[in-house]
């Protein structure tokens, strides 16, 4: 227990999180443990990968960490203090932001991109109203979009463009930690690479920490310093990305690694690039 008390400033931590859902089948109610006693922490400047198959609880865990879902047990801590009430969550969301998995549902369909991006500035009064358009244009350029995109509606953009907009919107409040839930899994492979590269650039430029959730081990390997492997609601293995990939200890991790098409060739290719 004491070992987990890394109470330095800026650390986001989920402690002993349990989340159960009631599922009703054939008239009987059954408890399903989506997340079972899981702890995660992310320190400033770190990229933590959370990997596991669909339905293993990684999205639920990430949603608990931003307060969209409530844990059945356990607590979320930020900067060493528990996040308890509404005010705490509001404070946390000034420095921790979230990018949703599905770029098509995460943007309000009736709001222009420019307005959607300016909204966080207006809500928190981050700058004078006259400066908002300029900030939005600069942010659009930073995520690799033309400033004219501000005048478009969400349905006029492609999936990759929308995901860049979602990323930009989360960055408008200048967060220190960004939680990315499968943000490239809905995109074409060629676009995936662009968005990942963008994420790495932004991480460098804005000094971000990332929690990066994915079921794609190649993406995790490419991006993360540290990786946690989730299986059926529990963390079965964690450690430095390289050591987990080169020397997996848990059977599930081995199965995952073996399932990567051309794993050895992909590794070789990445080693060449590095």
């Amino acid at each position, binding site marked *: 227990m004491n070992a987990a008390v890394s109470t330095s400033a800026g650390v986001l931590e989920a402690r002993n999180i349990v989340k159960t859902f009631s599922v009703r089948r054939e008239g009987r109610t059954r408890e399903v443990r989506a997340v079972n006693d899981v702890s995660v922490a992310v320190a400033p400047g770190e990229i933590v990968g959370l990997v596991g198959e669909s339905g293993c609880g990684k999205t639920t865990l990430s949603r608990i960490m*931003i307060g969209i879902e409530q844990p059945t047990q356990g607590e979320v801590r930020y900067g060493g203090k528990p996040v308890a009430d509404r005010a705490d969550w509001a404070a946390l969301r000034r420095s921790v932001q979230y990018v*949703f998995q599905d770029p098509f*549902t995460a943007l*309000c369909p009736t*709001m222009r991109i420019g307005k959607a991006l300016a909204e*966080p500035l207006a*809500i928190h009064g981050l700058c004078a109203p006259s400066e908002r358009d300029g900030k939005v244009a600069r942010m659009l350029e930073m995520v690799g979009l033309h400033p004219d995109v501000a005048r478009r509606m969400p349905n006029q953009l492609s*999936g990759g463009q929308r995901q860049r907009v979602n990323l930009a919107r989360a960055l408008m409040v200048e967060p220190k930690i960004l939680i990315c839930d499968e943000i490239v899994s809905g995109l074409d492979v060629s676009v995936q690479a662009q968005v990942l590269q963008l994420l790495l650039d932004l991480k460098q430029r804005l000094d971000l920490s990332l929690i990066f959730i994915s079921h794609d081990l190649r993406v995790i390997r490419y991006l993360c310093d540290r990786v946690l492997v989730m299986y059926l609601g529990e963390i079965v293995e964690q450690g430095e990305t390289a050591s987990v990939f080169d020397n997996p200890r848990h059977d599930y991790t081995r199965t995952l690694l073996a399932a990567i098409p051309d794993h050895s060739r992909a590794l070789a290719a990445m080693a060449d690039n590095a």
Partner: protein
Amino acid sequence: MAAPATLPTQGGPGLIQRLRVNVALGAGVVLLVIMVLAAVAAPLLASSGPTEVDLMAVRLPPSPQHWFGTDAVGRDLLSRVLYGGRVSLLIAGVGMIGSLTLGTLMGMLAAFGNRFVRPAVDRVIEIQLAFPYVLLAIAVTSAVRPSTPVLILLMVLAAWAAAARVVRAIALQERGKDYVKAAEVLGASRLRIAMLHVFPSVLPSLVVLAAMQMAAMIVFEATLSFLGMGVQPPTPSWGGIMLDGKNYITSAWWVASLPGLAIVVTSLALVLIGDGLQARTEAMRAREGDR
């Protein structure tokens, strides 16, 4: 995975169905425009005032002089139906706007209120939906003298709950979507989410509701006036004129049936418009890849 959402109108309505929708919508608009123009231009079109009595020309059947015939005291029926249209359409319009305003407010409260407000509003909507409105009207008009403001109030009371239920359903559906959660994470207040994010998605359905409720309002005004609880004589309204003709239905059929025809045509036009708009918003949603 994301590809189907960007494909154009796959599985959307076919050409024939789209054509049918457009023809119905067009016919509705044309009919409604005719009825509204006739009511607005009543002073130009009517051959006499709506309350001008001519005791020498009582209960005349339709003829070149009196296209719609005359009633029991010799008033020109076409003039009365034209002027009655002004009264009926105006009252229905004001009633519809009042009902939609109250309904939208309550529907949004039922979706976005706090945990005490939501169930309370839900119960009020249910009670209102369960209450027979003609009974309510009889109760109210026996307590206070029937007049036009009372009539409009009754119409709003009778119709707002149906609008509230539609608004609530759409708002709740939108509320569960990721974009609302994203706004919450960015710090948006519940009021802000309701007004700026969710309400614009409710708007297309509100336009459909406006047409449907306008039709219901016209019938409701006619019902109450026919029962003597609505617009009071000698002011003509479509329901009121039908009441005048009720006693002569076998000897002078035109007095009751021609204002009835005006009611049927107008509400038919509005229902056609409502159906057409509904089909269009649905097609639009399907195109947007709204999931």
